Each structure stands twice: as structure tokens, then as C-alpha cells.
């Protein structure tokens, strides 16, 4: 019923993950796998584009928390962009904007790496 998809593309040496659909405890593993694959190939500059994400549960947020420490230790980061209001509200309530760079435009997120 609830579908979730991750697709991957590259822009200025930054990996961009586009996530789509419903990110909850059931679908979280596929985002987990996608990020793990990037880490396995020594890619630590990651932007996640939330444009087509309809819902995120705490398990989905947990995925980000699970990797962030390792990624930052390698000099990389996960930056988030293009969230709709509802999803930003979830992030905001939990205090995630204090931990992650969240930008409105994808370009800005990519820019932050290239600076």
C-alpha cells in the first residue's frame, strides 16, 4: 500500500538521493541500504531531496541519525532539502534543524558542500 522509492544521481561530486512516498519503519531499510551503499563506495557528501516525500515517521528520522556520526567523521555530511511544510514540521518539533542543514533548494544544499 505505502510505497517508498529511493533514486540516486550525482551533481558536482555530491550524491543526491531522491526519496519518494512514505518513509516509515517498513520502508526505512531501503533508505538505509541506499545510504550504506554510498558509504561502502566511500561517498560521504550526500544530499537527500525530500521533494516527493509524503510522510516520514520517527523510524525514518532514525535512519539519518544512524549514519550521521560516521559520515561526519569522514569529513562528509548529509544535507536535507526541498521538504514540504508538513515534513519540516516533524523535523522542527524534534529539533532536527539544529543537527542538519536543511535548505529549501537542492542547489543550495549542493553549494554548501562545494564551498
Amino acid at each position, binding site marked *: 500500500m505505502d510505497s517508498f522509492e529511493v533514486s540516486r544521481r550525482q551533481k558536482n561530486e555530491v550524491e543526491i538521493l531522491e526519496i519518494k512516498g512514505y518513509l516509515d519503519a517498513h520502508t526505512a531499510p531501503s533508505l538505509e541500504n541506499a545510504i550504506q551503499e554510498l558509504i561502502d563506495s566511500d561517498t560521504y557528501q550526500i544530499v537527500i531531496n525530500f521533494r516527493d516525500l509524503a510522510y516520514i515517521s520517527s523510524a525514518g528520522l532514525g535512519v539519518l*541519525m544512524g549514519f550521521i556520526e560516521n559520515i561526519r567523521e569522514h569529513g562528509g555530511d548529509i544535507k536535507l532539502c526541498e521538504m514540504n511544510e508538513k515534513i519540516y514540521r516533524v523535523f522542527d518539533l524534534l529539533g532536527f534543524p539544529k543537527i542538519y542543514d536543511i535548505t529549501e533548494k537542492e542547489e543550495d544544499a549542493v553549494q554548501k558542500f562545494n564551498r
Partner: protein
Amino acid sequence: MKKSLILGTALLIVILMIAEFYLNQNSSVDVFSPRTLVIAFMVLFSYFISRSWTQSLSIYGKVKIIFALNLLLGAIYYFCALSSKSFFDDNFNILGFIILMLDLTYIGVSLRLVHELIIVQRKKSTTRNFVLFLVFLFSFSFFVQPDQFNTTVKPSFPFIMGPDGFFPSLLTTLMIFGMVINSFRLKWIKFLNKGQKIKTLFQSSVIILISTLLISKSAFLADAAGAVSFRLFASSVFFLNIYFSFTIILILLYLPTAGILDRKAKELASLQQLSRSMLGVFDLNKVFDIILQQTIEITGSNFSWLILKEEGKKSFQLVAENGMPERIKEVFENPGHLSVVKWINENKNVLMVDRIGKDSRVSDIEQWRHRAGSLLAIPLISNKKILGILFAVKNTEYGFVADDRSLLAMFVNNAAIAIENAQLVEESVAKEKYEQELKVAHEAQMKLLPAKTPDIPSLEISATCITANEVGGDYYDFFKYKNSLGIAIGDVSGKGAEAAFYMAEGKGILESFGQINQTPAELLSLTNDVLYKTLDAKTFISMLYGVFDLKKRVFRFARAGHCPVLYWSGEEETIYLVEPPGMALGLVSGDIFKKTLDQAEIQYQKGDIFVLCTDGVTEAMNEEQEEFGEEQLCEVVSDHFKESAEEIQSAILMKIQEFVGGASQHDDLSLMVIKPR
């Protein structure tokens, strides 16, 4: 038709026998002498009695027995001929009698065995033809009296019974005709494997050789036991010679293709064995082992391996191998980028490579070069999706033929089903385990929640937690102190037993630190200090902790990433969402947490309402996957502010129920309504 033919023939013979008997009463024709009766009895007895054990023999076993008996008889003849040449000269002696009996037994048993070879894959006429032949054989032996044996028979009607008469010629013709007809019944040969065919070829030659010697040596029977036994013996052995000559010819014709037939039979047998054994196995690793073993057997490959797409993953992984060299194994540990895998992914078809070293489709695997050969790669397809790829390699070039390809493709269909079966079973076992865990977690969660709301004269309190099928990790609690009431509401991000465990930990911390006089912000900071160290990276807890100062009538609270407090001011008849800053517990270390966390304070009075909830309330979803939201929640409260805490709570729940409709609850939902009196 068949019966009447047999009966008719038998009747004719009986009539002729009686005629012969009466017409030649005075002659010494020995048709009914005790001797001929013993001969007939011996042959028929061994023919019928041997039936009980010859039937259980394999086809090749029957040939072997004929060969063995033939050899034995040949040896006895050779021995007797050496020891005493004049032995058979006597009219009757005991050794001659024994040898005669052996001869007759041999004939009986051999005819029985040949009979059974003949009726392999019988047609309607097969048995009839053979029985008719036996009748002709016996008639010929008993009634035809060629004069070269100098018997004293003087047939009354030479035209009918005499050596040159019509009857003997007819019987002889019929018998020989019967021999030839039955010699064409050689269907059993195709059931022999190549090795057995070669052995049968050799044995048939020996049988013919020894039989020919036996006929020439057994002329003594004419003297020892009368012409009947000799004719019976000689014509039977003659038949065996003809039969096995045909056998030799046919085997020689079959032999060049015998190997192929053998292989086909083996392949089909192993396929059958596989479908039987594989579909009953639900252990994935065992299924893999069977598949690889069978692949090697069917195609005669040197090694084989299997790569599968793991559930939820896009790339292939090596899951099982049989005899795979280490260096090639390393390449296939992570096979997604290999051109052979890409080729199959695109074409969804079987790939047969005759020369590994020379084929561009597999040229990116350097490790092949050490030992070139041929390769067969077959996709396992289910519901048009590629589950995996089965590989088989032979160390010789051009090792696989089109047959291997089609047989393996057929087999792979079964393999895909077996793998899916086993995966489903594994999944359902895991699911059951998971459900069991959920049950335990659910019970634990229920025990952590307070059994009833505290009894406070100045506060009307109503609280509930509606759990989803899967534990979402909601938690709420009350801590009663002198002149104050602590309340906590939280949501653990994990699920199942893990969530329940962290919930218990949080409750423990709140209980022990709550005793000390602390502000809500201080208490949450202390809680974060402990949880940040113990929670795993993925897990965090959103929590709201507040204290109702019952004397000063102040509600003081801090929010660690939790939903805001909904405050209805009775005086202003207005709703406020009070949301002081704060991050969830377990996300960041103490300093950052403390810096961000702030407290809120609300002076309350009679008629005010506080609503505390978890995200299960605001994120309750309907079938269109829209969320209930804060606005609707506020609306309900404003519509029902005059009612009691319990009534307001039910109104909210009703509204949520109405909104959600048929959609299933996906998260825990906790709701607390507090109304000062």
C-alpha cells in the same frame, strides 16, 4: 480370435496325435512313451516353475541368467566329452539321463526368460505369437520324424505324416516362421544402458557360439532319449541362436547413440528426483545445495554457482557455489558490474558461451584466462522478475550443447519455485517471531503505563493510550509529589521490544530523578545525559515533562522534541499551542541539549484545559493518507470546552475515528486531557 486360433491349433495337434497313435499302434513311434512324457514334463515344468523368480529379475538380469546357464551347460558338455567319449553310446545310463534333464531344464528356463524379454512393452499379439511358437516347437519335436535317425516309424499316410509329407513341412515352416517373428521382439534392448548393451553384445555372441557347439554335441540325445528330445533341444537352441543374432544386430545399430540415450535418461531421472526432493525443502541453503549439485549432474559441469538478488536490494550476491575456484569466487562476490550479469539482466535470456576466452560478453573477467572453458548462465525468473542467475562452467571449450541449455532451463524453473517457497517459509517464520516479539513488547508497554489516573482534587484528569498493531513506543506517566503532580508523555522512535526497553529506562530515570526538587528542564537534561549514552544512534525519544504546582496553580513544562501543549484559556476562550524550544532525547550530547531546551510556564485557573498528546493524534491518517492535524484537534477542543476532561477526550477520539474511517492505525496514539477545577 486369439483364443480360437490357439484352441484350433491345439485341437488339430491332438487329432493328429491320436491319428498317429492309432494308425501306428504297432510301430515304435515314441510319442507317448514314458520317456517322451518325462521330456515334455521336464521342459514345461521348468518353463512354468521358473516364472516365479524370473519375473523379478531386471531386463539385463535375464540376459545374464541365460548367459550363465549357457556357459554352465557348455562346461558340463565339455567336461563329459573329455572324460568319456563313449559315455553316450549306451542306450541309457545315469549320467546321460542327468545331462538330458539339465538340457531340458535349460531349455525350459531359457524359453521362459526369452519369453519375458519378448513381452517387454508387449502388444496385444506378443504373447499369442510366442505361445503359438511354443506350440509349433513342441509339435515339430514330437510329431515330425525325419528319417535320418533311422527310426522304425512307418507312417500310415506318408503324405501327411511322413518325412516328406505335408504335415511335417507345414510344422517346420510354421516353427521357423514363429522363430523369426518372435526374434523381432527386441524392445527390451532400449532399456539397457550403454555398459549393459556392450555386455549383452558379448554375452549374446558367447551364447550363439556355445549353443552351436551344444547342438553338434547333443546328437547323442537321439540315441539316449529318442529323437524327440534331440529335436526339442536342437530347435530350441536354434531359436536362441536366431534370437540372440537379432539381438546382436540391433545392439550394433543402437550402440553409437547409446551414450546419448543414457544421458537423456539420467537427466530426466535427476530432474524427477529434484522436483521431489527440492519442493519439500524449506531451508534455503539446502535448496541451493540441491540446485547446484543437480546442475553439475545434469550438464556434467565442473563447477556451478548461484547469485541472487536479495530482497529489498538491487544488487546480486553470491549465495552458494559448488566446486568454484577461489579466484573466480572473489570476482562473483560482488557480481553486479560484470558484463555477463548485465547481459542477462537486459536480455532476460539464457547465455551460452562456447569459448570463455574468446567471448566479449564475459571478457571482463580476467580470472577466466587461467583455465578457459565454456559457460552456461541461466536467469531464474519469477513473475517476469529476475530472482537470480545460475551459472555452470565446464573446463573444456564447446562443453555445452543445446540439450544442456533446454534441460537446465526447464530445471531452473523448478529451482526458482523452490527458492521462492523456501523464502516464503523463512519470511513467515521471521514474521511469526516478530509477532511474538511484538506481543511481548506490547505487554511490557501496557505494564509501563499507569493503571489509572491519579486522584487530585483540584485537577480533572483523563488519559489513554491506544496502541497500533505494531508497538509505536508511546508512553505516559504521572508522578505524584506533595503539592505537585509531575506528568510525562513521550514517544520512543524504535519499535517492538527495543522501544519497550528504552521506555522502561526512561521511566526509571524520571522516577528516580523526579524525587529531587528539580525544574522540568533540569530533569529532561539529566534524562538526556543518561539516554544519550545508552540509546543507539538510530533511536531517540521525544518527551514532554511538566509539573502542576497545585498550590500556586502554575503548569511549568519543558518539551524535548515532543508535540506542543494545547492550552485552552477559559477566560479568553482561545486556544494556544505552547511550544518552547527543545530537541528530542538521545539526539545530541548534554551541552547542546541544555542550550536549546527552554521551559514554559502557564498560570492556570478553573475552566482552562490542557491537552497533551503524541504524534499518533496529529498524524492519524485516513484512507486518502491525509493527516488529522493540529487544527482539527484545536477545533474539537473549542467545540467541547464546557465538557468534562473525559468527555473532551472522547470527543477528540470520536473525531479522529470519524476522520480515519477504514484506514488502519499505523502508530500508537496517546492523549491526555487535564482540566483544573
